[in-house]
């Protein structure tokens, strides 16, 4: 049998030159394929970027990567479901493997001004430790951030301040239930106003010092939750194991359990992407099959001649497939390049603030920063190559099964 090394250059030469026999047709097909690849990758980058922002924001909105609670707290976040931090767990707060970690008191409360009152979640924080763990430290737009766990001040969301008809420097009263099931109330001066995204965070939360909250609720040094941030939210196993071992009898949960809706949203996005990839590819596949079929029908006599000269049918099949692969290869190279350039060009984000209300309703930011994920790029490339070759099989099979004499005499 002829060696493959001798045949391969012939196959490549024939495939390459045949592709450019109809330069315009090939360029049109190439443009369509590049457009398809581009739309797959850029769409994935936009969805992935938007999702990434959403997840990051939700994690900063008092979720963190890992949370520790008393077992019943997540179902009923009340004062009685508090816990004392075990010494071993307290030690992990200083673990170098954690980016940030802090304890919080987090209970339902009512905040009242002299005019209005509203139901909120009272969050007692350690201001220093909270930095890097949640949004609050970087969200003060008026006044100042809390200085210490025993700071007597209160941080109020801008929207809630408007609802309560109060302002920076004014006093409000916080009322909740203490450890003895008695009403605990205390007056606070508003020392800082914060903005938050989504706006529900502005209206639903007030922040005071951790020690102040513990005193007000008469819970000693006990807390409602402990939150921790790690360097990589997708690799939590080691930290989870360590913290679970240090917190016997407590519930140690990753963000995916604390915010299952985020995971669901991510899964829905993956399905949307897959559907998008399939729709785009289906459109591309029709064009590809059409182009290759036209090329095969035009060259019927040529394929007959090939067979007459002794080219095996599988080699003819291979030639059409190689033509398809070259076309797909060029399209992928250009598509990836254009996609990368597009994403790089959009590094400052796409501002869709004209639709801001709609975005906020679903908790998304109106400015989307596309994020290229290696998995999405790989998926787009693999789908195009694998399905592209499969789509090319029919024209290739047609070319290989001609009866030589019929092919040669066809006009």
């Amino acid at each position, binding site marked *: 049998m*002829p060696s493959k090394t001798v045949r391969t250059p012939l196959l490549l030469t024939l495939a390459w030159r045949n592709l450019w026999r109809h330069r315009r047709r090939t360029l049109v097909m190439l443009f369509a394929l590049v457009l398809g690849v581009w739309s797959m990758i850029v769409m994935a980058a936009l969805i992935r970027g938007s999702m990434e922002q959403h997840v990051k924001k939700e994690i900063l909105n008092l979720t963190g990567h890992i949370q520790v609670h008393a077992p019943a707290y997540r179902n009923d976040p009340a004062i009685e479901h508090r816990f004392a931090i075990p010494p071993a767990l307290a030690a992990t707060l200083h673990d170098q493997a954690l980016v940030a970690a802090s304890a919080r008191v987090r209970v339902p409360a009512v905040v009242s001004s002299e005019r209005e009152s509203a139901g909120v979640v009272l969050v007692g924080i350690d201001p220093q430790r909270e930095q890097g763990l949640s949004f609050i430290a970087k969200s003060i737009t008026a006044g100042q951030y809390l200085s210490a766990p025993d700071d007597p001040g209160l941080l109020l969301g801008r929207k809630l301040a408007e609802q309560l008809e109060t302002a920076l420097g004014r006093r409000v009263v916080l009322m909740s239930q203490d450890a003895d099931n008695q009403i605990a109330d205390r007056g606070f001066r508003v020392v800082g106003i914060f903005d938050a995204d989504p706006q529900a965070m502005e209206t639903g939360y007030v922040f005071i010092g951790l020690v102040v909250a513990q005193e007000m609720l008469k819970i000693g040094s006990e807390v409602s939750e402990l939150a921790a941030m790690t360097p990589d939210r997708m690799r939590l196993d080691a930290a989870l194991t360590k913290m679970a071992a240090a917190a016997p009898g407590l519930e140690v949960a990753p963000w995916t359990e604390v915010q299952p809706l985020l995971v669901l949203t991510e899964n829905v996005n993956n399905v949307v992407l897959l559907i998008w990839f399939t729709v785009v590819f289906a459109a591309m596949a029709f064009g590809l099959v059409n182009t290759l079929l036209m090329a095969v029908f035009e060259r019927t006599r040529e394929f007959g*001649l090939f*067979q007459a*000269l002794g*080219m095996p*049918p599988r080699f003819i099949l291979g030639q059409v497939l190689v033509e398809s692969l070259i076309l797909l290869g060029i399209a992928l190279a250009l598509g990836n390049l254009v996609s990368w350039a597009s994403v790089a060009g959009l590094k400052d984000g796409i501002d869709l603030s004209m639709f801001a209300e709609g975005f906020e309703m679903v908790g998304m930011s109106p400015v989307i920063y596309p994020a290229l994920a290696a998995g999405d790029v790989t998926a787009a490339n693999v789908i195009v190559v694998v399905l592209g070759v499969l789509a090319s099989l029919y024209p290739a099979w047609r070319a290989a099964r001609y009866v030589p004499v019929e092919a040669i005499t066809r006009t």
Partner: protein
Amino acid sequence: MDYTVVCRKLGKVYRQNTIAVHALADIDLEIPRQDFLCLSGPSGSGKSTLLNLIGGLDKPTSGEVEVDGIRLASLDKGALAKLRLRRIGFVFQAYNLIPVLTARENVEFVMQLQGVPAEQRAEKAMAILKEVGLSDLADRRPGELSGGQQQRVAVARAIVSEPSLVLADEPTANLDSRTAQALMELLVHMNTEHNVTFVFSTHDKLVMDFSRRLIKLHDGRIVEDVRRG
């Protein structure tokens, strides 16, 4: 006797809607090795059909063909292609060349499929192109060659790998008399020096004059088989 081609009771019927057209009927033919044979006859007499059946490009309706002792009916498509690659050279009346390859690459095509190393291929291709007077046009594509030049390239491709059998349908069509004469002399040389068996289908008297055996076909039957010289 050593035969390159043996046809036994060969028949071919084409169907055009409900009408059966008998292109060949009961052809018994033995072509010894190194024969130089010409098939002649009016259009529709079955010359091209016989060439196609001998070359394994088409399947007979009845009877069988042997090439170099191999029964073509026993071969599948791939094996037939292999047989053509190794043992048979073709020259067609029209549409002979691969448009995307140059004259030299067209001549090298079969050798490349056979796995002949590049250097040897190029050397043989240039030598045969020189013999057919086209060495200066080796790098031109078929579209840049005249009909006669294309036909000479096709002949060069058919004989360059020295197959045991060359089947040529009107090989001198489109050639001027001088070029045709030179080409036929080259084919005679291949026939006598390299034991290549030639079967032509032609109306050209020049080809008939060069042939050592003349077979006349009429309505799909052999009506005359004359050996000369």
